[in-house]
């Protein structure tokens, strides 16, 4: 195999456009603007095509030219290419014609979209020579850093709010990572990590490795376009915490158009938040680009409970640019959203998935998403991770003794035909 080629040229400030070397840095020294990976798109457009991509293994790395590492990926080579599921029963429930679920509840290895970002961040961390990697997390990122670092033989520290769901805490501890619970909200964990990163020189995936980390989210957008048959959905509904995923799916769609993989066609990206922490949705509804931080997020949706969303401003711009809208929903609507997705599409999502479904429903009912246009819902994490949130909300098993009589008494009211039918016998 020939020497891998890099198409990723620099880091670039999103605010002033100053260029920086491809190191473990994340903000512009002049205006604190976030640094973002810059690529040579003309070179990329000469190197990839639909056929070339389609011939590669079914992982997120089939889009390697548009991901910010120099060599071949060394961490998380199996991540991504999760199913895009056409969900006709859920579509009927929501009263729309064409609905798809991008199902990252089954992303490998830790059942959330965060494996995408961690795969890029840790592959890059190795290229930059880091031995210790770390993150600030609301849970999913911690799980993914812990698992992927373990597989790669890197030492990891994950810092989380002390009150996270138990299953998310165990889902980090099991990999032998150093889990540090902080008495405080996610934003305080974030701030501490920013200070630690400056002092210890570790590879913090969402601090000094953020420009690499964030780009991993684009793979979700690339996959949606490819799996729809090389076209864009008219509407994509995306949960927002920091707002990064929404901006990166938008970027992915634009990049595929830029390098000639897709024809230019109109699309909208829509953002979803929980009402108990909705700084970005609130700003969108007020039609301002000033995101007012939420000091004390109060929601069962802990994975989206970021009161000071770093990419809020850019998420607003992405929605603005594409004619998208934002919504938010109550905790009760979140649970209803989780149940609808499970009962009508057979997919058990974590609370953030409930937010996406519930907000999509509101956007449809308010006419912001027309019922006859294609819709993709981004479902980003598995329901087993946040079981506490719906415990007792979806009933309890009915208990009987191992007795046919008790069973018959139990189903008497279930409207199940009682006559015994036998399967047809084999043709003689």
């Amino acid at each position, binding site marked *: 195999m020939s020497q891998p080629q890099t198409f990723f040229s620099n880091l670039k400030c999103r*605010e002033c456009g100053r260029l920086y070397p491809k190191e473990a*840095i*994340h*903000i*512009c*020294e*002049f*205006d*604190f*603007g*976030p640094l973002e990976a810059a690529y040579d798109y003309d070179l990329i457009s000469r190197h990839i095509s639909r056929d070339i991509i389609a011939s590669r293994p079914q992982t997120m790395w089939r889009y390697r030219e548009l991901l910010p590492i120099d060599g071949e990926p060394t961490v998380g080579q199996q991540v991504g290419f999760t199913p895009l599921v056409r969900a006709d029963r859920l579509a009927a429930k929501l009263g729309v014609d064409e609905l798809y679920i991008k199902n990252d509840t089954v992303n490998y290895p830790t059942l959330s979209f*965060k494996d995408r970002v961690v795969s890029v961040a840790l592959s890059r961390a190795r290229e930059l020579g880091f031995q210790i990697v770390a*993150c*600030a*997390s*609301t849970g*999913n*990122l*911690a799980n993914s850093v812990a698992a992927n670092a373990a597989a790669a033989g890197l030492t990891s520290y994950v810092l989380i709010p002390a009150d996270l769901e138990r299953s998310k805490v165990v889902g980090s501890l099991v990999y032998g990572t150093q889990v540090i619970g902080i008495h405080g909200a*996610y934003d*305080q964990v*974030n*701030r501490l*990590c*920013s*200070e630690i*990163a*400056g*002092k210890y020189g570790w590879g913090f995936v*969402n*601090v000094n490795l*953020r420009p690499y*980390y*964030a780009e991993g989210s684009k793979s979700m957008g690339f996959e949606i376009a490819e799996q729809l048959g090389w076209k864009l959905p008219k509407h994509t509904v995306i949960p927002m*915490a*920091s*707002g*990064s995923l929404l901006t990166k799916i938008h970027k992915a769609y634009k990049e595929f158009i830029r390098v000639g993989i897709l024809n230019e066609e109109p699309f909208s990206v829509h953002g979803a938040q929980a009402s108990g922490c909705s700084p970005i949705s609130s700003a969108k509804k007020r039609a301002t680009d000033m995101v*007012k*931080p939420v*000091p004390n997020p109060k929601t069962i949706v802990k994975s989206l409970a*970021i009161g*000071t*969303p*770093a*990419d809020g*401003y850019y998420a607003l711009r992405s929605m603005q640019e594409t004619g998208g809208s934002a919504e938010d929903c109550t905790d009760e609507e979140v649970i209803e959203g989780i149940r609808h997705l499970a009962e009508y599409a057979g997919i058990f999502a974590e609370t953030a998935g409930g937010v996406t479904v519930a907000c999509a429903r509101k956007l449809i009912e308010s006419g912001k998403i027309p019922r006859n246009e294609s819709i993709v819902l981004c479902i980003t994490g598995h329901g087993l991770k946040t079981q506490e949130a719906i415990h007792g909300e979806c009933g309890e098993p009915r208990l009987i003794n191992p007795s046919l009589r008790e069973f018959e008494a139990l189903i008497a009211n279930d409207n199940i035909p009682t006559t015994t039918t036998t399967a047809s016998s084999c043709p003689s």
Partner: protein
Amino acid sequence: MPILVRIPSPLRKLTNDQEIVPAEGATIGDVLANLDSTFPGLVERICDEQGNVRRFVNIFVNDEDIRFLEEKATTVKEGDEISIVPAIAGG
């Protein structure tokens, strides 16, 4: 006891690599102005052309975000600790 200001790593080139620097002033705005006379160029990194704290900068006084207080008019006193922290991504 002076007011102490925590400088984030991207700005330490301007503070001779000092992580914590002493400062004086009655408000955040005063403190920033005084810091700028000691470390020229610091304020233009933190504030935009209109003098507002840049979108991607968070300033905390004793762990409280000044956007929840009175922004640059937030009063400070001796012994307070001010942190300048860049915004970072989610997780």
